[in-house]
């Protein structure tokens, strides 16, 4: 028989040492393992990886090229932003789009796990429920950031020159944007029982969040009601610093293009990022509550 015991013969309970370090390391370990599984699955799912690049690229090509040609290279997108073509302007927004879509849909794995039973394996494990939400949020954040990173390959094609420093700045910003949107996805996912339901709700959220974020057009000269909507869209607080980092790296004059303004005051990129972080942490708290419910 192949099943010869590798364990010594006497049938005695093997003492399996468990992480005997404190509660804190156990928590981090649980967060890590939830995160790690998401990353393995992301890496393995080449189709999804490519498919989720298709949409941002489509936007970049159709809107970018189309509008750039019809508006002409010198469209006045913002004061002092001459020599910035539309496609250059929208490029950071499309990077944000890749991050946004990947992050929000990454939470679908929770609904998927529920439907296929795997969530039970996680829920009965001796780990804190909040570790599940945190691990998922970091997993989605990682996926979103990687997807954004892939999009950076297209920068030279659209004429955006990225300095190494810009890339270093962009990475945490993409991670932060993805983190916030994943937590929003997790909040939805923790309440949804079916994949179809999740998709309906996310699709309902994702397009307005994207369109009002300033990814495709400057937010400076909008009618009042729309201006208000854009400023309550958390994604806007992620797109503005992304654009500042991507465009402002080599051309400082472009650093404030598309910054969010409040009564004429351009919000500095770090402040926007902090607002985004605040939204993310709040959403995470809601997501944790969604998981804490015990039948």
């Amino acid at each position, binding site marked *: 028989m*192949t099943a010869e015991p590798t364990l010594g*013969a006497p049938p005695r309970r093997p003492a399996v*040492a468990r992480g005997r370090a404190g509660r804190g390391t156990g928590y981090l370990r649980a967060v890590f393992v939830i995160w790690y599984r998401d990353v393995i699955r992301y890496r393995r799912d080449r189709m999804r990886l490519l498919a989720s690049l298709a949409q941002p690229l489509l936007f970049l090509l159709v809107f970018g090229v189309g509008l750039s040609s019809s508006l002409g290279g010198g469209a006045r997108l913002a004061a002092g932003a001459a020599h910035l073509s539309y496609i250059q302007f929208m490029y950071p927004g499309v990077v944000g789009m890749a991050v946004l879509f990947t992050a929000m849909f990454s939470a679908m794995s929770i609904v998927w796990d529920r439907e296929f039973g795997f969530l039970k394996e996680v829920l*009965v494990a001796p780990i804190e429920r909040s570790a599940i939400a945190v691990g998922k949020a970091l997993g989605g954040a990682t996926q979103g950031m990687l997807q954004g990173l892939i999009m950076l390959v297209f920068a030279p094609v659209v004429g955006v020159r990225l300095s190494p420093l810009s890339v270093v700045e962009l990475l945490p910003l993409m991670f932060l944007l993805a983190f916030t949107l994943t937590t929003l996805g997790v909040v939805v996912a923790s309440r949804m029982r079916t994949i179809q339901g999740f998709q309906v709700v996310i699709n309902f959220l994702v397009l307005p969040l994207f369109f009002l974020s300033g990814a495709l057009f400057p937010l400076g000269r909008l009618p009042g009601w729309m201006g208000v909507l854009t400023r309550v869209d958390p994604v806007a607080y992620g797109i503005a610093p992304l654009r500042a980092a991507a465009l402002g790296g080599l051309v400082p004059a472009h650093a404030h293009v598309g910054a969010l303004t409040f009564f004429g005051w351009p919000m500095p990129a770090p402040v926007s990022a902090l607002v985004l972080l605040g939204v993310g942490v709040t959403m995470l708290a809601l997501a944790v509550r969604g998981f804490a419910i015990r039948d």
Partner: protein
Amino acid sequence: MGTPPPSRPPTGAARTHLSSAPAGTHASRGGAAGPRAHGDPAVVVRGLHKRYDTVEAVRGIDLQVHSGEIFGFLGPNGAGKSTTIQILCTLVRPTAGTARVAGLDVSRDPAGVRRRIGLVFQDPSLDEQLTARENLDFHAMLYGVARGQRRQRREQALALVDLSDRQDAMVRTFSGGMKRRLEIARGMLHAPEVLFLDEPTQGLDPQTRASIWAYLGELRAREGTTVFMTTHYLDEAEICDRLAIIDHGTIVAEGSPDQLKARVGGDVVTAATADDEVAAAELRDRLGVAVDRGDGHLQVTVADGAAFVPQLVGAVSVAVRSVAVRRPSLDDVFLQLTGRAIREEPPDPRAAWRARRGMGGGRR
């Protein structure tokens, strides 16, 4: 559906394997104290109740499971088996009563209980996008198995269920039986004191079921794990050291399969006659025995079945077509205790297929 044959030999050989297991198996099979030296019971339940809105699923259960035994919870669907096991696994809170698992109270220390138990669910709960090895490693990390022991535990667990050579294959390529075996391997990976299995062979083919029973026997023999399983299959109940029979949320009998059958008191004699109505009346009047009407036959329980056959033939005026004498089965026990047979649904291959695909009927 290409269901690869189980890598184990079929029923007969698996049975042999079980009975040729190390001596420890037989020692604990006889009901002797399991390997847990201090002899504490693995599960103690007192006055357990669970009420859902209007339905009382569990109505005052008391039971005790000894360390190292294979304990079966037998009852028809909807009898309260799954609710009880979910309470013991801290997934559902009891309405009243107490339950201690591995020495810890399920209500006061659910996290502690979770660390000490393994759980194999009724429905599949593997990540099909990962390999068998990744599923096990994920579980080991979740349960905090020390890094240095993960590999050894994983290899032992995979060897026990004969999946060592498939550990790098994606779980989605596994047959239903292989998935179930992998779940058992996963359930024991962190060396739980008690392994709970909810309907472990539901929907599996007979060969695979027999091999799973063999694995459970080996698991107990090698690691001294207490096994607590629910079932509504009588043949599955037969492999248990001890059983509790549950019906309508209460335990109606408890004991080893042999003890329970002995309660029926003797042999079961079944007879088919030209007119069962008349024959039953005559048997009652002339021989003074209780007669149950079965499906197209009569059934009498007597101390000595062989000696009763000529009496039966003599007492009945209508033609007797056939008479059979057999030892009582657990179904007879259940029939006697509740007045009903456990309805045994034969495993439906389509349902099993759907369950494996995750398209169970209960979902939209």
